């Protein structure tokens, strides 16, 4: 080494990614507790597929394999895919989604650090468009034992409609819509009453609200470790809370409460782990606030007025498109040029 600085902080991409993985553990633990160990199988399948796809692409591109396979970035993508897909999708769907994320969205754009879109979310969007039925089947907490889950994942069992339903978000939206129509038997029921069903817990979905809490804990730890900054999670949660609060405040019987929105679906995973992906997200402090708030508004709109069970994935991709524009226009004034 010929040029200063001659000393460096012991930091590496690998250690950043490792800490992100560790921060996911509380959420995963809650997932296993409420929904069974099937998710661990999915995590393994996705990890293996991600490493295989990454290795193949690195070989084709002539890049050092050991260096990039051990940076753990592919594993982070794999885990986010496994955690956002329904836990009982067949193995080939997880593999296809992961390969799309790693091979197409990441490596074909130039590999680590070069992808304009969040690979996991792009994979989610592609899969939900391609396989809407399989991607919408969510078992209720405690509904399926591990054996059934394995059969579902590895193809022994295909009759899933009978045993699985929609996400709490989806269920509530459907219920609210039918409650609004005079022909329905649900007509006239309030949100609180609609949420009395077995799928719902205290704030959001039964079980899933605890997973969200796990993600929140892990995410706060990442902020404390200075791996991510507070801007994106705070702006996302605040904007989602405000959006939901506005409509809920106007018509509490017609819309879910802000806390329901925060505790349901991928809100916490999105706020702390998905939108905070540095490669595809905004980088300036002000830009991060705009980026996350935009994602929250889009998420809310898709959740409430759209056709998909959750809006995080589409919202993330849409905001990824805007990142260069946001970054360019939110550069902070430099030393000596501030107006204060």
């Amino acid at each position, binding site marked *: 080494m010929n040029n200063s600085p001659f000393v460096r902080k012991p930091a590496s991409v690998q250690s950043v990614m490792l800490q992100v993985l560790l921060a996911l553990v509380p959420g995963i633990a809650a997932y296993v507790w409420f929904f069974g160990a099937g998710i661990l199988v999915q995590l393994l399948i996705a990890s293996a597929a991600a490493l295989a796809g990454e290795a193949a692409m690195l070989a084709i591109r002539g890049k050092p394999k050991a260096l990039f396979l051990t940076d753990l970035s592919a594993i982070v993508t794999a885990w986010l895919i496994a955690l956002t897909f329904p836990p009982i999708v067949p193995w080939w769907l997880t593999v296809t989604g992961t390969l799309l994320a790693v091979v197409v969205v990441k490596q074909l754009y130039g590999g680590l650090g070069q992808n304009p879109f969040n690979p996991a979310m792009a994979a989610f969007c592609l899969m939900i468009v391609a396989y809407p039925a399989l991607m919408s089947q969510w078992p209720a907490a405690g509904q399926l034992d591990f054996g059934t889950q394995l059969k579902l994942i590895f193809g022994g069992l295909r009759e899933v409609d009978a045993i699985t339903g929609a996400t709490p978000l989806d269920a509530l939206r459907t219920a609210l819509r039918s409650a609004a129509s005079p022909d329905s038997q649900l007509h006239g029921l309030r949100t609180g009453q609609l949420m009395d069903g077995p799928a719902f817990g205290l704030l959001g979905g039964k079980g899933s609200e605890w997973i969200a809490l796990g993600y929140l804990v892990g995410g706060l730890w990442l902020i404390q470790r200075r791996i991510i900054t507070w801007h994106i999670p705070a702006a996302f949660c605040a904007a989602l809370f405000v959006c939901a609060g506005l409509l809920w405040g106007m018509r509490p019987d017609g819309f879910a409460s802000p806390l329901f929105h925060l505790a349901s679906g991928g809100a916490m995973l999105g706020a702390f782990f998905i939108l905070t992906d540095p490669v595809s997200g905004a*980088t300036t402090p002000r830009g991060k606030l705009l980026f996350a708030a935009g994602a929250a508004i889009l998420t809310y709109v898709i959740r409430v007025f759209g056709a998909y069970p959750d809006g995080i994935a589409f919202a993330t991709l849409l905001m990824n498109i805007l990142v260069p524009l946001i970054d360019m226009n939110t550069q902070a004034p430099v030393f000596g040029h501030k107006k204060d």
Partner: protein
Amino acid sequence: MLRKLFKFHGGVKPHTNKTQSTTAPIAAVPLPERLAIPLHQAVGGHPRPLVAPGDRVFKGQRIGGADGSLSSAVHASTSGIVRDVAPAIMPHTSGLTTLSVVIEPDGEDAWGELEKINYRSTPPDELRDYLRDAGVVGLGGAVFPSYAKLKPGKNGALKTLVINGAECEPFITCDDLLMRERAADMLKGIVAMRHMLHAEEVLIGIEDNKPEAVAAVRAAIAASGEKGIEAVAIPTRYPAGGAKQLIRVLTGIEVPHGRRSTDFGVQCFNVGTAYSIFEALEHGRPLISRVVTVAGNVAAPRNYDVLIGTPMDHVVRLAGPRADTDRYIMGGPMMGVRLPGFDVPVVKATNCILVGSPALFPPPPPEMPCIRCGECAKACPADLAPFEMYWFSRSKNFGKAQEYHLFDCIECGCCSFVCPSHIPLVDYFRFSKSEIWAREREKDSADSARDRFEFKNFRQEREKQEKADKLAAKAAATREKVAGDTAAAPAAAEADAPAAKPKPSADDAKRALIEAAMEKARQQKAQVAPKNTDNLAPEVQANIAAVDARRETAAPPAKPAAGKPDA
């Protein structure tokens, strides 16, 4: 009593490694066998040599005279004989040479006659000239001639004089030890600077990892009874010792890139500079030595008072370098420069000789792609977005890099220090800056080449025009002459052929001119063109003449066949 301090953005906290070299006091260094004193040691013009090989010089004798509006003198560090005034390798990564004066010490270390000066009664301009000729430059590392900074600025008075004792670079403790041991004298230098700058208050900023220095300076202030001088302990965070960062911490003022701090009522000097100003004013001693920290891969890290020009290995030997030493770094590990050898001389900018080894400063892990994590932006004390500048530098999009304030980068190394992808960011920025400078130089030289070319065309046009004018004037003169001649001829001639020759035409004049010119050329040719027989001996020439004469008479001149060997 507690002063409100300000924060600068970013910064890092590397291991300070300072305690190792502060256990022992500043030590003297025995005279080396030879001193090589580079003439160009400070920002500004290249000083001219004032001595020649063989000259006897005294300690403190000026050997390089300041040249130009920004330049600083250089002096003999000890008495002895000048052995050479020639290019010698300088302490810089490039390994380039610079004109240096090589002195062989006579061992007497005898001072020449020293002139002292009373700074209170001397006019400011004279005082500045005096300091210029005493070779006082900034000892914090930037080596900017101090006299040029000792002007109060546009307002005629300064609000705050900031004295930099922060010393934020790891390993370096020369300022720390100087403050501990020489606080009283340093303070006298500060009082003189305050006088020259008409400064209202003086703030001496010292990082709080140097409590002994803070205590020593406070004690000195108390003992001196001076008012309006305060030693302020500031939080230890690299680069708090950057002039702009320190000004920000102490006063809250941010001096933008390219502006003078005096415009904001602030000026900043290093503590070592204050001490050398004291030496120059009080004792008349020019800047010929400085405190240098020897640290890193040595058995006993320590500070030494080193004569400028001393070979570095001569100093390092005293501290006991370990066997695996592979390099010297001038400065600290964050901003220091790797030196091209071990025998390069100590110069005014040498605050530290950091002895390195592969174990102490291992090569960084392999460079990974940028993941835009923004750690560099969080660490940047100039509030830049290094990762954006990195993309633009990498793609040689220098215009964009400048738009993102490339030139506000102070190259402190914080971004490279924190980067999890181990990207040598500062190297990219140094590269971009030098590319931009090179392009500007190229553009300048292209501009001046175009100017020269255009002027040449203009000059040729002008000369052509002048020639034509001259020709016309001459022609007119000839015409008049011819007209005069014709007028003298009988009128009858005019009556005979009035149509043929009404008056001398321009053609006639021209023909006359041409004939005159041709005749002149013929004559010149005859005069100038030498014959190959001109330089022969008289008898040979006589022979040739005889032969010629015979040929003339024998035969009519025939054309000899071309290439005929005996022709």
